[in-house]
């Protein structure tokens, strides 16, 4: 038995980020500034550094390392780069929120960076265990973040729910993984693919595999928040501090996508006909439940939570098509959704201030009279989420519906488009509140320059990427070698 030193270069970005996170943790001990300016900039710098390393390695051919645990391919690069951007945006939005609520503590940044690291590990996972490691790193950081405002009873309750339910889901996933290990004798995703391929169509009638698949699917879709495993979503979105909701709503969705793409779409390609039907059911349920229940919400964070559930339904539609084309459609949707959701939560943070949360739909009333520019941004975000062109949400819907139609799920595609009409109702209600109602609150909107700038860019991105969608689509396609 000889010991081979792993190719550390493959995981350079992860190693760098891990080191930097520890540095941030230690440096923060010596920062006595209430606003944690140093910690904030150091965190952004760490992300930028990791981004530079990843960007530098783009274009190198796919390589598997660490004894088959870790892979650096196009999808990993694309997902990581996108997560850096979204995390950085989330940190910019968070800063003012934390400062206003006296929550600015170094742990926030450290936990956010650890969550990012978890996503990176998942994006590069080539082994069930690395998938699980990444997932737990992400989840544990998020549990802690939800409870970050420790004096808030709602936040503690949300964190408790998230933790208990999340642990059950992790357990389920782990159980499914162990069944697969029992049936195929491997946890390596590459070896698993070949083992399943060797069994051929027989694999689909193998009871043990089917049982394992069901458990894995439950675990995976729980993390994504698909119906009927969505119960945690509204409470966590609502209870968590808005800046944490922002992280859960955007960055963690990329992680959940990486999970499903790596485990199901890549590792279990052979079983696609089986899990595809399960996914179709989950997608249909998520669309209907998410959208119908969202109508009844008056709290914007809860509404966005249910809307997130329905968007998960759309994301799942992409996986109906076999192979990279399907992953590409979903990946594009996830990215589009993250851009829209971060804008929407950014708006909630923007309108809030010390002692006031702008998380009711009514807090947006008359926004057009208070600030036409921010009203326009929110209008674009809402129409984009509805799926009205020329915004990015439309192109995203187009790509997943095409995937569903190409896979022969005509009924499901029809359901999806019809549900987007129902969804229009509650998105339009926000627009209605902003444009047609009189303002209740005349406090001037104050925000730091970086927040205003990033939010403006975020809003315009929804429009510009909708009119010129090719850049992001091509990024996804190149990532999957299409």
């Amino acid at each position, binding site marked *: 038995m000889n010991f081979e030193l792993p190719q550390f270069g493959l995981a350079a970005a992860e190693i760098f980020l891990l080191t930097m996170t520890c540095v941030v943790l230690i440096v923060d001990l010596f920062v006595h500034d209430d606003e944690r300016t140093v910690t904030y900039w150091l965190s952004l710098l760490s992300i930028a550094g990791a981004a530079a390393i990843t960007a530098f390695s783009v274009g190198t051919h796919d390589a598997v390392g660490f004894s088959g645990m870790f892979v650096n391919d196009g999808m990993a690069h694309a997902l990581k780069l996108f997560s850096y951007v979204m995390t950085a945006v989330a940190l910019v939005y968070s800063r003012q929120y934390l400062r206003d609520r006296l929550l600015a503590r170094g742990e926030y940044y450290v936990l956010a960076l650890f969550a990012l690291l978890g996503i990176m590990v998942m994006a590069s996972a080539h082994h069930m265990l690395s998938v699980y490691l990444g997932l737990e790193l992400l989840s544990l950081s998020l549990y802690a973040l939800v409870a970050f405002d420790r004096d808030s009873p709602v936040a503690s309750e949300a964190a408790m729910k998230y933790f208990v339910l999340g642990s059950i889901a992790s357990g389920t996933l782990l159980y499914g993984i162990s069944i697969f290990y029992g049936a195929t004798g491997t946890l390596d995703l590459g070896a698993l693919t070949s083992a399943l391929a060797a069994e051929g169509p027989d694999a689909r009638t193998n009871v043990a595999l089917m049982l394992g698949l069901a458990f894995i699917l439950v675990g995976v879709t729980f993390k994504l928040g698909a119906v009927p495993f969505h119960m945690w979503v509204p409470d966590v979105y609502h209870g968590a501090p808005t800046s944490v909701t922002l992280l859960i709503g955007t960055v963690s969705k990329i992680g959940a996508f990486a999970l499903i793409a790596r485990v199901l779409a890549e590792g279990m390609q052979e079983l696609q006909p089986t899990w595809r039907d399960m996914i179709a059911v989950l997608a249909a349920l998520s669309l209907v439940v998410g959208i119908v229940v969202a109508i009844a919400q008056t709290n914007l964070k809860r509404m966005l939570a249910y809307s997130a559930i329905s968007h998960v339904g759309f994301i799942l539609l992409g996986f109906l098509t076999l192979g990279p084309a399907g992953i590409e459609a979903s990946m594009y949707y996830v990215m589009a959704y993250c851009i829209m959701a971060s804008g929407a939560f950014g708006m909630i943070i923007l309108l809030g201030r010390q002692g006031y949360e702008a998380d009711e739909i009514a807090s947006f009333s008359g926004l*057009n009279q208070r600030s*036409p520019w921010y009203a*326009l941004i929110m*209008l674009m975000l809402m*129409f984009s989420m509805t*799926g*009205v*062109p*020329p915004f990015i949400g*439309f*192109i995203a819907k*187009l*790509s997943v*519906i*095409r995937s569903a*139609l*190409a896979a022969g799920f*005509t009924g499901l*595609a*029809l359901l999806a*488009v*019809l549900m*987007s*009409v129902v969804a*229009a*109702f509650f998105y*339009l209600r926000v*627009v*209605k509140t902003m*444009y*047609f109602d009189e303002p209740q609150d005349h406090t001037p909107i104050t925000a730091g320059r970086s927040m205003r700038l990033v939010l403006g860019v975020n809003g315009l991105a929804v429009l510009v990427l909708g009119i010129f*969608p*090719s850049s992001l*689509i*091509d990024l996804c*396609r190149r990532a999957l070698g299409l």
Partner: protein
Amino acid sequence: MNSFPLLSVLIFLPIVGGAIVLALGTERPTAAKWTALVTTVITFVASLSLVTGFDRSTAAMQFAETAPWISAFEIYYRLGVDGLSMPLILLTTFIALFVVIAGWEVIKVAVSQYMAAFMIMEGLMIGVFSALDAMLFYVFWEAMLIPMFIIIGVWGGPRRVYATLKFFLYTFLGSVVMLAALIYLYVQTGSFNLLDFHVTPLTMNEQLYIFIAFLLAFAVKVPMWPVHTWLPDAHVEAPTGGSVVLAAIMLKMGGYGFVRLSLPITPDASRTLDWLLIGLSLVAVVYIGLVALAQKDMKKLIAYSSIAHMGYVTLGFFLPMALLSQGNTSASALAVEGGMVQMISHGLISGALFLCIGVLYDRMHSREIASYGGVANTMPIFAALMVFFALSNAGLPGTSGFVGEFMVILASFQANFWYAFLSALTLIFGAAYTLWLVKRVLYGEVANDNVAALTDVNRREMFMLAVLALSVLVLGVWPAPLFDVMHASVEQLLEHISLSKL
């Protein structure tokens, strides 16, 4: 062919102008108004070169532009016009002028947003009429709803929120089903080119489903009975400019959709279901005509009259299905061209009528017919113009309202006597409801002090109404240039739909 991207200019000039007006902010209304006026005038003048440069002898797409847009889905930025779409673009740029002028003194709140919304909408509407790529068409088609939603909701009447939500949801429902059909066609053909869709063979079942999907989108837009109920609400609550655009242009998109998509893509389904469309059109003509008679609100009356008149358009477009099976191509051409003329003419007349009501509303702040009476005594010039538009709405020979209706009735005689009988009833109903409206509002004794205090039209209003009256008259007396433009395209359309795609 010139290589100057005229259509792109027509689309993006108003949109960019709108963005500039929006950026001016709500603090500078005068600058916003002038920018809007200058932009719409330039757009209109530019659109005239569509007429001068148009080759009347061919049915091919002219002023064509092609550029890759979303290469991953084979979506192209593909524009072009033929005889069916060119007149509608001209109508759009023409009507947009009046919308800006109509809002000049009337709109007091957030003027820049009002003007910007209309300008962006103008560009998008021109886009709908010139798009030759299914996705580009859909993008323009849907994007247009956003400014309209805001226009009705912000500057509308008391029940504006209800009306605008209903408007948006209704039209959105229709169009998402069309979206599914368009993507299905893409999956089948591997292209989003509308002209490829025209020639791709489809089974009868596919055609039926696609036809119904298109029907949902276009029937809501036209609107056809029984999915018309959003229109009276939207019209009544919309500000004058909004009503004008709705009636004059947006409704035409439904009709345009039928000739650009439904008929050529699913000719066999259209043939099988022609009875349905003809039946619904006749219901619109007869039943909605009667409904119009019962209205107490002027705007609602004109809204219902619009539905009845649009019934002629759809009747004209689907009569050929019945006529072609008898081998009657000349009557088919008559029907389709009649429908097209009716679209243009209705655009002018209904726009003018809504402007007339706007003139009254600005002075009295009431749309109830009962609040008026004897307006002709205090506003003689206005009364003369409004009577003229009312008569052309009723189809008086010599006005444009007559041409289209007469052609469609003539064609329907050759298809079936009862079609002709029922559609000709509108000449009676149409005359009844418009003339009765005129009698109650304009004539008789001065009804109350408010009417007695009215002042006649000012120069701005006079200008708008007179120009429209002139165009209605010219189109009525000498419609030949319009036919010239359409003829080749209509011929080609008929030839295309007479062939089965099965």
